[in-house]
């Protein structure tokens, strides 16, 4: 399983969109990293999210594959990830932060 943490603002993403995104993230992880996603969906409570000191509309999606990947592959995957996220949610690219890390050191 590939750990995947999604941090979203309260009320920003409908239950239907969440289900769609979970499905897409799982398919993305399986295709890109050969294993399904272990999704930790975290909602920032109302009035608890700030970006540049103002109420936040940003989401953070962070994935940690089990093996290192080269930077060209990482960039391609990050664009794909943020692309399907914005297409589903209607958020702009300025409102989504995608992270694909290298594995934790042993």
């Amino acid at each position, binding site marked *: 399983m590939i750990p995947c943490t999604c941090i979203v603002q309260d009320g920003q993403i409908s239950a239907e969109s969440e289900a769609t995104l979970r499905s897409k993230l799982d398919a993305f992880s399986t295709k890109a990293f050969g294993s399904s996603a272990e999704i930790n969906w975290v909602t920032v409570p109302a009035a608890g999210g700030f970006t540049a000191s103002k109420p936040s509309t940003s989401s953070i999606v962070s994935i940690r594959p089990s093996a290192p990947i080269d930077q060209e592959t990482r960039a391609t995957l990050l664009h794909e990830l943020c692309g399907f996220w914005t297409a589903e949610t209607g958020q702009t*690219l300025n409102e989504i932060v995608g992270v694909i890390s290298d594995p934790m050191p042993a």
Partner: protein
Amino acid sequence: MPLYSCNALPGAIDDAAKPKIAADITRIHCDVTGAPPIFVHAFFFEDAPHQPLDDSKAFLFGSIRAGRTDDQKAQIADQMRQSIHTHAGIPLEDIKVITQDTPAKWVLEGGEIMPEPGEEAEWLAKHHPEAAAHA
């Protein structure tokens, strides 16, 4: 990025304190590192299982771009701990602040790989021209 995630005991940081602490987090991070405010996210949680409090009453975890010095990280931790203490009234010894380096090249924001620290001007001009004009 940076993302500052603050977990606290229920009620330890009230809703009036959160925007003040978020403003301080943004100001402190930008003052210490020179980064533009538009990059700074501050999210508040209560008793969140993804960020255990252990023996603290408030735990601020900052995922920041790699490349900051140990002195910068120490300033960030000290000043942000003081801000939480000031606005929420939590004793300093009950507030934990930790930062973790994240390579900029791991992060896509605004549809592009994040710039390295100190190389934000072009990125800002493209995605937030209003911020670039004031950077």
